[in-house]
């Protein structure tokens, strides 16, 4: 028999975190408000930060990079924005279709597991992951953009936003785990497991939606 008291604090926190993230995902109209107020550059910069798929994967990439040795982790600083740029350019040119929704959950599961298992990645793997994720997210964000939007400004905003997010999150993670007790590393790994769990849920939703169609 289950009761509320039987739910562990960690699970409650995970549930709360997931619910909060889903709530954040429920406000895509915000991007249009930004677009009408400050134009396409800021719409591009803020659009990914208001969608669950971007928010969680960007966070996961930053955390993963911050858990690596700085010499390897710092490759996200260049790799991720360049990937975003490539994704925007290729999709806008019609050379790359937007990734299917399975990629969202799949990306979270892969990044979350790598983080939870604290796997040391070579520099090429960090850079490759950053570029791959950048291409996928750049492509997904530019897909379906209104014809009235300026793709160059939107893309430039997203590029800067991706660069800032990847740099700040990975540096903050590095500073957090380096300057303190061992529990900090465990906390970051726990965050990885939550990200993987959110990814599993999204994968299930995407698969179910696929079956229903």
């Amino acid at each position, binding site marked *: 028999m289950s009761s509320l008291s039987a739910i562990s604090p960690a699970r409650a926190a995970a549930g709360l975190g997931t619910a909060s993230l889903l709530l954040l995902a429920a406000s895509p109209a915000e991007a249009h408000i930004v*677009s*009408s*107020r*400050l*134009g*396409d*550059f*800021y719409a591009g910069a803020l659009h990914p930060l208001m969608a669950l798929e971007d928010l969680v994967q960007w966070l996961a990439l930053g955390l993963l990079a911050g858990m690596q040795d*700085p*010499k390897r*982790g*710092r490759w996200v*600083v*260049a790799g991720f*924005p360049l990937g975003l*740029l490539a994704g925007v350019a290729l999709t806008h040119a019609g050379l790359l279709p937007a990734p299917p929704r399975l990629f969202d959950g799949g990306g979270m599961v892969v990044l979350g597991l790598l983080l939870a298992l604290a796997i040391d990645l070579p520099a090429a793997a960090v850079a490759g992951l950053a570029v791959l994720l950048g291409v996928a997210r750049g492509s997904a964000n530019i897909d379906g953009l209104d014809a009235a939007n*300026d793709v*160059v*400004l939107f*893309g*430039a905003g997203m*590029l*800067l936003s991706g*660069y*800032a997010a990847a*740099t*700040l999150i*990975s*540096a*903050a993670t*590095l*500073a957090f785990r380096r300057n303190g007790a061992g529990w900090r590393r465990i906390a970051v790994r726990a965050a990885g497991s939550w990200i993987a769990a959110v990814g599993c849920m999204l994968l299930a939703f995407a698969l179910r939606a696929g079956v229903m169609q």
Partner: protein
Amino acid sequence: MRRLGWAALALLLLCLGAAIRHPASAHEAAMAVLELRQIKPTQYIGKWVLAPTFDPGQIHPKFPRQCSWMDPLLECGEPGFVGPMSVDNIGSNLSAVMVHVIPVNGEMQSYTMSAASPRVTVLGLAAPTWQTWFELADTYVNLGIDHILLGIDHLLFVLGLIWIVRGGWRLTKTITAFTVGHSLSLAAATFGLIGVPEKPLNAVIALSIVFVGVEIARLRRGHAGLTVRYPWAVALGFGLVHGVGFAGALVSLGIQRKLLPVALLSFNIGVEIGQLAFVLLVLALFWAHRTLSASLPRWGAALPAYAIGVPASFWLIGRMIKLLTT
């Protein structure tokens, strides 16, 4: 310098992209002013005294419920032209709409609507009340934030200062000097104490950014330029120029004189909020690059100077051509 990171590469791409999209008008914001002159107790006649660059028919003002708008005639039932008013489609191509209400008897009242605050309350002869002041402050703080965030030329100048000036206290003094400079000239220009034609002013603003870009390049070669030796003086001097540029947004609206001090103060607070947010973001990125030891490669050490100097030169040439040919 090299340790400040890959930021320059992203910024170079960003600035070039923005510069290409905004060749010579990085800082011009569209304003529109609608004058409503009372002709009968319940009727007003409307006229765009400052028309937007596009068809004013595309602006959709919404008047209080008891009023009906048949352009150019506004007809209001009881209790007259009072109540909430808004403009639906203020956007990136139109920063603000000001409405001047001119009664048959009494003083003119003005109300400003922006994208962030598209709704005001028309108070009739009772204005101004606390509500008027509050709405005014809300509108102009947001207008100030929008103005600095959309003014990529001002932000590039601030970025150049942050890049050149080392040390927390020294940087604080420099940014404060820039703030004092632009606040003084903003106030002076808004109150009509000084006036500089827009086109040469915009060219000088672009020149100030080119100057900072050149100073970064000189610093890289080991020459300590004026900005390195007297950063506060350069910041104060060019701050005075940039402040006159900020004032353009306020002056073009022709705001009611008794509302002007609060509007000016609120606008300046908005500008400072936007500037502070930008400075903090840049400093956070510098810290992040140091933490990650993510430095620029040797071949890229000159990138910051070009990231700032190239778009600024582009604007300078464009603005000079505009100045000389029109």
